[in-house]
């Protein structure tokens, strides 16, 4: 026991002085932060062959960091590990096309929104939804206007197998309004449900419009199209924001200032036209 106890206590001591990775301190103004992104969500964020992240949010992150005059390192983290990783201190900010929702606000803080992109269905060109004439943008906060169109969509989508990314507001939307009407399949990444759409394992996808537009532009999706109304608000929250720990109040202020400046001088519009082919700047 004596020998064993000695070894055990030395090991514990050694473990506690192990490799440290620095993270921003909460109340003082940080000089270097780590931003996490998913890296599997083209064109917002994706990973190139060299292992580096690129895309709309990476360009925007670099721009915001230049405005805030701090050094930013961008790391890649799987979608469902973003919030647990943030609260565990593995990185300081999340910029991964994450919507600001009340549920998430219970656990983390968000900056003001830097993008608004509604979600919609991608279906086969021969499906009932594509052939119908339902369109328009609906804010789910206005239930009176949204519910009737959703009710009209239900018979058109009945029995369809819909792919959606797990742990997203898209999945929550399907569960809230279409549970029992469609067969919901949850995937770890959007790339995986794109692959299964091409393979025909799912008949439709539900995701953000810009992401769907980028996917469907590839040749293997020639027989699919974005169709039906687009939705925002409600379960989708208030748009895309940068996630931060609740204790990092100084960092939050810096980000809000930088985002406001980027919106004002049209940087967000320029970057979003470049990557997303549409302007996702939120209204002031």
């Amino acid at each position, binding site marked *: 026991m004596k020998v*064993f106890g000695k070894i055990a206590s030395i090991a514990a001591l050694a473990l506690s002085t*192990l490799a440290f990775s620095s*993270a*921003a301190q909460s109340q003082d103004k940080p000089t270097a932060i780590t931003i996490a992104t998913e890296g599997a969500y083209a064109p917002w964020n994706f990973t190139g*062959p060299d292992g580096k992240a690129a895309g709309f949010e990476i360009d925007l992150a670099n721009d915001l960091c230049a405005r805030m005059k701090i050094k930013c390192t961008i790391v890649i983290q799987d979608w469902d*590990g973003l919030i647990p990783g943030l609260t*565990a201190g*593995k990185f300081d900010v999340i910029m991964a096309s994450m919507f600001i929702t009340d549920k998430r606000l219970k656990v983390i803080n968000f900056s003001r929104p830097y993008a608004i992109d509604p979600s919609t269905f991608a279906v086969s060109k021969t499906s009932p939804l594509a052939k119908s004439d339902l369109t328009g943008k609906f804010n789910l906060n206005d239930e009176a206007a949204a519910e009737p169109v959703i009710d009209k969509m239900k018979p058109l989508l009945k029995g369809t197998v819909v792919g959606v990314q797990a742990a997203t507001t898209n999945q929550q939307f399907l569960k809230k309004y279409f549970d029992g009407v469609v067969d919901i399949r949850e995937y770890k990444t959007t790339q995986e449900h794109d*692959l299964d759409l091409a393979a025909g394992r799912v008949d439709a996808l539900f995701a953000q419009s810009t992401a769907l537009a980028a996917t469907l532009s590839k040749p*293997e999706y020639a027989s699919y199209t974005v169709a039906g109304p687009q939705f925002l608000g409600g379960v989708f929250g208030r748009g895309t924001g940068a996630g931060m720990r609740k204790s990092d109040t100084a960092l939050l202020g810096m980000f809000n200032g930088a985002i406001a400046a980027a919106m004002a001088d049209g940087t967000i519009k320029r970057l979003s036209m470049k990557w997303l082919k549409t302007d996702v700047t939120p209204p002031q």
Partner: protein
Amino acid sequence: MFDLVGFGANGWGPALLRAALMTFALSAVGFLSGVALGALACFARLSGDRFARGAAFAYGALFRGVPDLLTIYLLYFGGSVALTTIGGWFGARGFIGLPGFATGVVALGVISGAYQAEVYRGAFLAIHRGELEAARAYGMSGLTMLRRVVAPQTLRYAIPGLGNVWQLVLKDSALVSVIGLVELMRQAQIGAGSTREPFIFFCAAAALYLVIAATTGALFRRVERVSRRGLRMA
């Protein structure tokens, strides 16, 4: 199709090879950590102390009974929390985290240590009791006996089992991809997702794993043959 994984301008070949190197490094360092942990656990298991024996048994049962995927997730998310708490006791402010490679190494070390403890235990029990008696009769201290009698023979009997555990570690390294470390599996996933050609990428990954497994397997068999020199066994 082959220029996707080739070495041309758009080829992912270099990336895949770098990732294979990362896989090998991760597995090697993880396996070596497992040697240390396994030896410690085996020592505890064979000691006279009841607590040590119970702890070692629990360690082995836990990490051989829980899926390795869950172990990796738990170490990834829980490790930072644990380290931050321990750091707090020593006065460190802010978060303390393990970088991805270190997390993978710790996970693989902990898992393979559990299996290696069994291998070492079996190997130790295969040593003839008479030798240990003779060593004691000669007045050898515990440490001398370990150095001169126990360790060489344990290693020799353990090598086949260790070869198996190495193959296990190599394959478990693919699971470390879920914490974002860019080893071979992750790189194949990135490539497959970006280019929408999963078949060629996963085939390339499988081929690279086979190459690593085959060459290291041959190495282990060579070491086994060398270790058996002069041994008259079945």
